[in-house]
């Protein structure tokens, strides 16, 4: 793993490392330590007095119904985003893999949304579904569905899920396509000679061989839904109506910067940190397994 030959210098490596270490120290580790510290403290709104309160902030969170509701919202939101995103992009990738002529064209047209900023994606979907001007909202009304995500929590959830899935399709699609193209054609042909139809071949050969990709994407999509969708939600629904689309990250932001509850917000940050660490560990255990394949 290490190089046998290397440069000898006492000071140069530290000079080279300095910028990176300074930034991670100042903007990552110090604030993270502060968050840990604040999570066991309670300060008043003006920041004049700070009391040590132990685990009270966490206990308050546990007893806070809006926080538990936010957990539930996040769970619903991220499972919908992950499952829908993976299903749709797998279907598209399977069909795109069959195409010989024009494959590049489809690919180029499908990877577009990756470049769109989440906040802009939120605005675009808001525009489609805005109750008074949105085209899709108008069509839905014409079909007898009274669409109003400003009043109906389910509609609001559907709106942010659609925007989040739309943005993530391109990413999943590219990984599935790469996974499909690495499956040996001889396996598929052998099954075809044995008389297996496309549908059967997909479930008995392609899908099992793709499972490492699928699992990897599942983790990535959950992380995405947890952390990278803040902008979509802030642009499209602002966590509303009520708190129906306020996922955990939105609540951390709202409590810390709008409601100025530093201790509570820090405790929520710590909970989120634990979640990220767990997800990262799962992801890397899996990556190691893939190497042994």
């Amino acid at each position, binding site marked *: *793993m290490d*190089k046998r*030959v*290397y*440069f*000898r*210098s006492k000071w*140069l*490596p530290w000079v*080279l*490392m300095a*910028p*990176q270490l300074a930034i*991670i120290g100042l*903007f990552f580790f110090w*604030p*993270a330590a*502060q*968050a840990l510290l*604040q999570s066991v403290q309670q300060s008043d709104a003006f920041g004049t007095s700070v009391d040590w309160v132990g685990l009270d902030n966490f206990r308050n969170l546990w007893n806070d119904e809006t926080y538990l509701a936010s957990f539930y919202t996040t769970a619903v939101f991220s499972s919908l985003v992950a499952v829908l995103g993976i299903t749709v992009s797998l279907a*598209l990738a399977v*069909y*795109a893999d*069959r*195409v*010989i002529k024009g494959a590049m064209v489809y690919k180029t*047209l*499908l*990877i577009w*949304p*990756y*470049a*769109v*900023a*989440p906040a*802009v994606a939120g*605005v*675009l979907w*808001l*525009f*489609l579904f805005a109750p008074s*001007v949105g*085209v899709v909202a108008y069509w839905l009304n014409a079909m007898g569905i009274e669409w109003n995500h400003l009043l109906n929590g389910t509609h609001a959830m559907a709106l942010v899920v659609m925007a989040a899935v739309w943005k993530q399709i391109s*990413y999943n699609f*590219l*990984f599935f396509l790469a996974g499909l193209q690495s499956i040996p054609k001889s396996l598929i042909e052998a099954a075809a000679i044995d008389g297996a139809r*496309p549908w059967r071949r997909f479930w008995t050969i392609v899908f099992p061989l793709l499972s490492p990709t699928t699992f*990897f994407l599942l983790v990535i999509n959950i992380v995405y839904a947890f952390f990278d969708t*803040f*902008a979509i939600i802030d*642009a499209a629904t602002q966590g509303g109506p009520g708190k129906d689309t306020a996922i955990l*990250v939105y609540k*951390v932001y709202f409590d*810390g*910067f709008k409601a100025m509850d*530093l201790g509570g917000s*820090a405790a929520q*940050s710590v909970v989120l*940190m634990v979640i990220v660490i767990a997800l*990262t560990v799962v992801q890397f255990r899996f990556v190691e397994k893939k190497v042994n394949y």
Partner: protein
Amino acid sequence: MVERRPFLTFLTHAVLVLGVLVVAFPLYLTFIASTQTSQAIVQTPMPLLPGGHMVENYLAAWNGTGGGSGGKAPVGQMMIVSLVTALVIAIGKIAISLLSAFAIVYFRFPFRMLCFWAIFITLMLPVEVRIGPTYKVVADLGMLNSYAGLTIPLIASATATFLFRQFFLTVPEELLEAARMDGAGPMRFFWDVLVPLSKTSIAALFVIQFIYGWNQYLWPLLVTTSEDMYPVVIGIKRMISGGDSEMEWNVVMATAVLAMLPPALVVMLMQKWFVKGLVDTEK
């Protein structure tokens, strides 16, 4: 394709065309809305073909003369902020990651692996889990409403460092021996051998990090409060903060198109590196 069946081929293209249409529809409608007058959009259903007001809408957005109820900062200025931010973040991340990966692979120094793991652990500390305290650090350093505040805290990169380290480990040791034989010092070796060899990785990372920088939302939302430092992504959100009928959707949508254009162009023009970058950064 294993068998030749016209129906399957037809189905394949039908599904893909449908997929492309659904994916492209919001973008299409955005473009259409940006060519209409605001009255035409408010009349439901809005027209689905381009109107004739494209130039004036884009000019109104660019100069900030739209008459909507939300924020009216000129998009031209915001585009410059976004561009500078995205470039500084992308280039900064690549530069400091190249340097630290070089130090980790080509030198022996105390706490070397500790440094590596410290960089690696930052993967587990996204902005979202430490927003309050990080904001405080930036505020105490007086970096609010500045390019430094917008970019420096986002420049550290575990993925890029990891990627370059993996790549440097595969560089044959004979190259280093040969360079030393010719009398090249460490920095000379870095500039004339390692950097040219890493060109494709650098290009791939650049695409990914440029998009990452351009699309930042939460962080700029916290550290910028003055209109002339808003990136375009924040600007567009502020435009829709009024009610949904009195808004000038045509100008908002023109802004959206402008905001999407640079990252979309980068993805389209550098598609090969984009795909490589995506795959590499997730390893």
